[in-house]
């Protein structure tokens, strides 16, 4: 990733010579590898069915789905987009936007994806999930017909599904007991679903 055309790969000379067919063969090879990786990532969860439940299986699915996606993305960037032959500052501004994305994720994911933590529980989110699971089960059991007039999510989950600010409502008696049994207490206070 030094200056321009640092890549020793076949595309380094960008086809000025007469190696046209070599280049195309090279691209086709990359495409074939990408296709193989695609099928591996599709087969991953199927193979995982035969594995015992547990962390290993979870890691395996994660790797076949997202690890391979990252490898594929890297190959497209490197071999098809030729990013390596661009000057460094191009890398820098692309990396900057990826980093900012990560920053926004890190800043909000803790609030959005977790529903409980030390001294706080987001009851409304947990209840909304339970309701949605229940409804999905009913729908899946009763054929696809049921459950569309569930503009529902607006209706029940609409109240701040998982908005931030659990810190506040957590006060309602969750100071010590997180989550497990604390749920009952909010049922008496329906407006626990506020923000």
């Amino acid at each position, binding site marked *: 990733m030094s200056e*321009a055309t640092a890549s020793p790969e076949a595309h380094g000379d960008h*086809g*000025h010579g007469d190696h*046209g067919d070599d280049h*195309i063969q090279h*691209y*086709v090879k*990359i*495409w074939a590898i990408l*296709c193989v990786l*695609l*099928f591996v*990532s*599709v087969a*991953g*969860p199927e193979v995982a069915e035969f594995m015992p439940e547990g962390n290993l299986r979870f890691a395996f*699915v994660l790797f*076949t*789905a997202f690890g*391979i*996606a990252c490898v*594929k*993305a890297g190959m*497209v*960037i490197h*071999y*098809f*987009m030729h990013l390596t032959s*661009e*000057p460094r500052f*191009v890398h820098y*501004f*692309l990396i*900057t*936007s*990826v980093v*900012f*994305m990560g920053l*926004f*994720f890190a800043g*909000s*994911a803790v609030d*959005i*994806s*977790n529903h409980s933590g030390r001294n706080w529980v987001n009851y409304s989110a947990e209840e909304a*999930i339970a309701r*949605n*699971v229940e409804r*999905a*089960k009913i729908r899946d059991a009763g054929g*696809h017909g049921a*459950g*569309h007039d*569930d*503009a*529902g*999510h607006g209706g029940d*989950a609409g109240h701040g*599904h*998982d908005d931030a600010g659990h810190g506040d409502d957590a006060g309602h008696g969750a100071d010590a007991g997180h989550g497990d049994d604390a749920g009952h207490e909010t049922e008496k206070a329906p407006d626990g679903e506020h923000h």
Partner: protein
Amino acid sequence: MGFRPIATTRSATGVPTGKLAVWWLLASEVVIFGGVLMSYLMHRINHVDWTYEAAHTDVRIGTFNTLVLLTSSLTAVIAHHYAEKGDGVKASNYLLLTIGGAVTFASIKFGIEWPTEIAHGFTITSSPFWSFYYVAAGVHAAHVIVGAIIMGFVAYDARQGRDLHRVENVGLYWHFVDLVWIFLFPLLYIAK
């Protein structure tokens, strides 16, 4: 060719201006798609209910469309290769193949996949998962359509030997569209 913009041939950065503009565009796209994908991810992690919904997406269609996009990326890079060699006609032909890929992708999505899902009652208002599904895939599909239209113009010019550098520029954009799908595919179809 009287109105060729001067900026396309002037560069203080070492990168042709048009290509640099595409890289900037892609940097902004990273944030657009990244934002959607990341917020999807952060909801997905602890919402088990999304798993029930995700089970209804069709892996076969998703896989086939991924294959279509990968192949169209291959034809785009081959078009670039011929443009570098100054062969506008071949570059144009391969761009047309790429457009074919775009049309196939969009036809499958809007002609088969979405109608089937909507007929089964999974619409954009069905649940947060389906909202994300239609928004993320929809924004991506809009990029596919726009890319196909732009490639049509570039292919037309390339056939006459004009503005061959644009073949690479539109190719960069197209590879990015492919790239986004590479991440959308496991998120929406595989992770169940």
